[in-house]
């Protein structure tokens, strides 16, 4: 199978050749042509500048300022603030803190478990949806309901189910086990409860994304597999899954970014408890910044979290690319 030319290749191939007879060096650009190109470039920058300024104001500046704050010894004053010195102490305090390590451990574990579960369940749901006929629209609508709920509302709803006094699930487990469980009061069950809510809420998102990928796979690929005598299992592993890889990578990237920033679920369900067992990095950053009013350390928590999540995403993309290259060679 020959690879289709990429957009970059096409654009390079179709670029106009410099004027002049073949075999002779291209004439040096004259003054008027260069001036015209500069004018065009200036006009381009002029038109792009509102968008660039907006991006700089709402994205680049806050990020850079947050990084600056994470190195700053800040003193709040009446009606203002003063940066007294620049220091690396906040990072030393954050990285040396057992609480930060525990929050990192929880966030990382939560991300890995939920992303894997959601990918598997979402893919299975998408495969089922792909084979549904007229009912697909209805099933899709029902499946999307949890995803459409606002996170805090969904967490509160599950909070009622898990509630130790009147929670429906607590009662049900109490009937089944003969003893009322303390779902949100013990570290393992609290984390499990949180994983359940996240999987319930976010699997539909993964299913929709994967379904879109399934619908893009051309039918003739399956016909070819059938002619070659591939059974359903082989077709899935050798045809469907490789074709889905790029879109699954996008879904996983989105999910890593979201799961690593988990805030609303622990905030509503457990406040980071029991103890600090479900305290995510985002909750830790919030408490450091807004409860303890430690601006520099809060910014250091935010910056380290951002660095870690970017690192995770890059690592994932590298692994994905290596695997794709290997698959391509195979």
């Amino acid at each position, binding site marked *: 199978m020959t690879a289709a030319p990429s957009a970059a290749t096409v654009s390079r191939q179709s670029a106009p050749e410099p004027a002049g007879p073949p075999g002779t060096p291209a004439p040096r650009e004259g003054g008027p042509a260069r001036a015209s190109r500069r004018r065009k470039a200036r006009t381009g920058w002029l038109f792009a500048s509102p968008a660039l300024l907006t991006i700089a104001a709402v994205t680049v500046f806050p990020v850079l*300022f947050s990084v*600056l704050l994470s190195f*700053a010894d*800040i*003193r*709040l*004053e*009446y*009606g*203002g*603030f*003063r*940066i007294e010195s*620049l220091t690396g102490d906040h990072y030393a*305090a*954050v990285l040396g*803190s057992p*609480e*930060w390590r525990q929050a990192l451990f929880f966030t990382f574990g939560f991300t890995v478990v939920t992303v894997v579960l959601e990918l598997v369940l979402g893919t299975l749901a998408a495969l089922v949806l792909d084979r549904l006929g007229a009912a697909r629209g209805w099933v899709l609508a029902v499946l999307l309901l949890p995803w459409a709920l606002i996170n805090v509302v969904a967490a509160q709803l599950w909070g009622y189910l898990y*509630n*130790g*006094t*009147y929670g429906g699930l*607590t009662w049900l487990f109490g009937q089944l086990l003969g003893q*009322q469980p*303390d779902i*949100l*009061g*013990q*570290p393992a069950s609290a984390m499990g409860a949180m994983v359940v809510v996240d999987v319930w809420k976010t699997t539909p998102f993964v299913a929709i994304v994967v379904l879109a990928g399934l619908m893009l796979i051309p039918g003739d690929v399956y016909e070819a597999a059938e002619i070659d005598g591939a059974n359903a299992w082989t077709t899935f592993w050798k045809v469907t899954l490789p074709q889905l890889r790029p879109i699954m990578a996008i879904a996983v990237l989105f999910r890593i970014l979201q799961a690593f920033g988990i805030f609303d679920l622990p905030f509503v369900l*457990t*406040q*980071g*408890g*029991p*103890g*600090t067992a479900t305290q995510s990095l985002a909750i*830790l950053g*919030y*408490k*450091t910044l*807004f*409860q*303890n*009013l*430690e*601006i520099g*350390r809060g910014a250091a*928590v935010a910056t380290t979290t951002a660095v870690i999540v970017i690192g995770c995403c890059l690592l994932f993309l590298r692994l994905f690319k290596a695997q794709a290259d290997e698959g391509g060679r195979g």
Partner: protein
Amino acid sequence: MALRRRTLLASGLALGAGFTSGCAGKPLDTLLTQAAHTPRTPATLTWWVSEIPARNGPVVADLIIRAFQRRHPNIRVRKSNALSATDANRAAVTTQLAGASPTPDVYLGDTTWPAQFGANSLALPLQKLLPKDFWEGYPPALRRVSEYRGAVYALPFYTDSAYLFYRKDLLAKHGLPVPRTWEELLRTSRKIQRAGDAAYGFLWQANVSESLTCNVAEFLADADAPVLDGEGKVALNGPGAERAFAMMRQFTETGVSPATVTTYVEADSQDAFVGGRGVFLRNWSYAWGNAADRSASKIAGRVGVAPRPGFDGGGPPGVSCAGGWSNFVNPNSHNLGAAVAFARFCAGEEAQMILLKNAGVIPAMQEVLTRPEARQAGDPTLTMAHGLRLVARPVQTPYYSQVSKALYTQGNAVTGGRTSPAGAVRAAREDIRTALEGRAL
């Protein structure tokens, strides 16, 4: 082009230098001069106020605003509804204040905030604007928590005290007295639970929040175990502290408290109590009104209230955490004079009488509690307030938030059976030391 690049670089450096040095504030003397004069021209204030529990129906904050506006017709007060949960309320208001917002002009805040807010310039120091005898009418514990390094950052509004609410009918049925010690409460609870008259004995708050810090502070005071010493250094240690933590564990271990108490804040414990699931409840004074409300309580008319018990062989019962809410003045307010006038009005006799007659809280001014209206209100928490032994949480450090976290994290762990009482005391001690050294997150 090179020139432009240089210009751009220079502008960037200038901007960076500007942010690096910060945005300079205003001198305190200028602010205090403005704050010393109540304006005679029209002014509008914003008052950040969470719901004040009402006993009779009318919204208490509105009654106070109307009374103030009658005294100061040129000043209008607008209400900004704040969250009731202390931690979420603090996060919301500090976001505004740290951004140098001029509103809210006055904000109602927890009595644990003054040191932290004072140290971070989020509240105006008010001692120079107060008469020398200002504090004579208020509890000394309230004055202590309102000050930080000799400056007053909060003016008293109302206090909150903790009581033991109990089922009168169940104690009468079993012929048992109201317990005066925790050991007696355990025995009484088990007897009533064994008879199948209540699912649980004692309901309280052990979630990882400030609510649990209050409970821990009370149990430690019952066992005569201080958190900090006179010099502000960590003093949590020894058999007294272990006894306090051991009792918290004993409640869940014996089934007197549900295992899920580790997820309870005030609302959860109260829901369980008014739903008839418990014999005893530790809660703030406002729980009296909620338990007596026939539309929301299954046990209305069957509830009694008493001071919290103490330990067997320990000090007398009646220890209560000094809770409550006070008014702070935003130093960035454009109406400092009006803001100070309003905060002082709320601490004054007229507003305190409005609280006495209408609110389910205890007015901060001690003298009004002796008035006939206190008895007429029909709320026993008002008349009992005088006899309580108020204990202050260790709030006189700007790191109180981290100190509190150390207490509630270990309190939650020991109640949930994840650590031993001795282990909890050791870990809390170490965490508090780290917090006081400014090294905790």
